[in-house]
């Protein structure tokens, strides 16, 4: 399936979506879509048998500061059944950085979206576990943003011993377990 057929198939699956092809140097079909249609497109990409993009290879973001729209969220998808690759990109403005989560469609997106939130500060609406992934939980700022300094001295507070009573500790454990859906 070549790039045009793929875009046409996807357009037929989600008629309302605005799909815009983009030129690439590597042989991967690249499309831009608007961020409101990400959930519908994700479902169509995974569930339509003629597409069957059941494998989310990568989810990341790029900061094009000071250009506007500032961010791009990039989904790299693989269709194992048809041996296809697709790069889907979503433009995200600087003043309102959020996209709908796709972790319900591809469970692998859970940590990848947490990493993007952690390092770029792009929120994923409806994410089941929206915490930082790599940086300490009390970290200020989003390190991979272009306006974040490379050399920075900051003392994380995470090493301080947490003072809790045994009851509080147990209550926290239960709370933690409930929030994770068990």
């Amino acid at each position, binding site marked *: 399936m070549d790039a045009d057929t793929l875009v046409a198939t996807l357009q037929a699956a989600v008629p309302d979506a605005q799909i815009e092809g983009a030129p690439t140097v590597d042989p991967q079909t690249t499309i831009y879509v608007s961020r409101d249609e990400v959930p519908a497109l994700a479902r169509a990409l995974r569930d339509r048998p003629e597409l069957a993009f059941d494998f989310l*290879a990568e989810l990341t973001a*790029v900061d094009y500061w000071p250009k506007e729209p500032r961010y791009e969220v990039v989904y790299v998808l693989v269709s194992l059944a048809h041996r296809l690759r697709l790069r889907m990109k979503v433009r995200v403005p600087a003043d309102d950085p959020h996209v709908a989560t796709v972790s319900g469609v591809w469970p692998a997106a859970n940590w990848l979206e947490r990493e993007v939130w952690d390092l770029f500060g792009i929120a994923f609406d409806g994410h089941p576990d929206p915490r930082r992934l*790599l940086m300490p939980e009390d970290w200020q700022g989003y390190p991979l943003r272009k306006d974040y300094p490379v050399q920075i001295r900051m003392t994380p507070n995470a090493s301080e011993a947490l003072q809790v009573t045994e009851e509080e500790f147990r209550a926290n454990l239960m709370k933690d377990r409930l929030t994770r859906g068990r």
Partner: protein
Amino acid sequence: MPDIKTEVMTVNMGPQHPSTHGVLRLVLELDGETVLTASPTIGYLHTGIEKTTEQKKWQQVIPLVERMDYLSAQSNSMAFCLSVEKLLALEIPERVSNIRVLLAELQRINSHLVWLGTHGMEVGAVSVMLYCFRERELLLNINELLAGFRLFPSYMRVGGLREDLPRGFHAAVVAFLDRFGPKLDEYEDLLTKNEIYLKRTQGVGVISKEAAVAYSLVGPIARAAGVDYDVRRFFPYLGYETYDFAVPTQTKGDVYSRYLVRVAEMRESMKICRQALARITPTGIFAVADPRITPPPKDRVYTEMEALIQHFLIYSQGFTVPAGEAYVPVEGPRGEHGFYVVSDGSNRPWRIKSRAPSLLACQALERMIVGGLIADVIAVIGSIDVVMGDVDR
């Protein structure tokens, strides 16, 4: 008999634990010896390499990416070079591609040997560790011969290789391959039908085919679960379609299947190595003839003004890469790996993102260990072969 009061116990495993392969922390809730919940915490090795690369020139990135997944250094730098070469639209000579295939496969054997040794040790077969590291030493010697550096050779360069193959390279590789086949049989004698090893690994840490796809598991973990995804077959690069090799798969998806897949992969890698070696001439072209990218030979730098200027420009300013983005996936030792590279047309990368197979394996870890025994946690962590440098980057 009166009811015995029982309660759930929380165990903090790691980040400093000998079997977590670095600094992985697991908070486990245990009911007796059964794992009720597991939450992996990562980030202890987060060094911000992706941010650092944005400050470096293109060639300076190579030593950094080699240190991400420190067990597959050559494979990392090769993946990075392929992506950048795609942006530069360079035609890479066939000899260079063949050498890269050979080095990538040797790196795969190297990584699998470290995995087999440490995994064997963790489930109680300490002698396997000593044997595996003995053979790995020969591979590190080959790296030393090649580049003067054993773990991170930085031998791959954008546009080709750093220098031509050293004298005695072919003989060293042939000597290794001749020795390694029978040694691999020895490892199998120690483990494949070992009753204790079977009891520790069969039916442990199972992940289904559907879950493996949903959690984007790649490489030996996915192939042990029956997903026959191998980048070398699905999206060939470096002429892998011209090599004769099999993609070993299993169906059970447990720790033992992963062991079988990796051992079979080492045999296939040996086959590829021999085929690649037959195609490589001992001396010849080792980089593209592009004066923007490849530095001139040293004797010309000492004798010609133009060559000196060219040398000076490459090492002071570097080269520029046309604006755009590229991602070339390769099959690393841990599965699909690659660098999503974005350039703004300058001599420094705008953004580099490593597709980290270990990160996704770590995410799926919870699924594999919940419901099992705490002793099996060790076997499962070993079997998914996570490299924390790749998880945290």
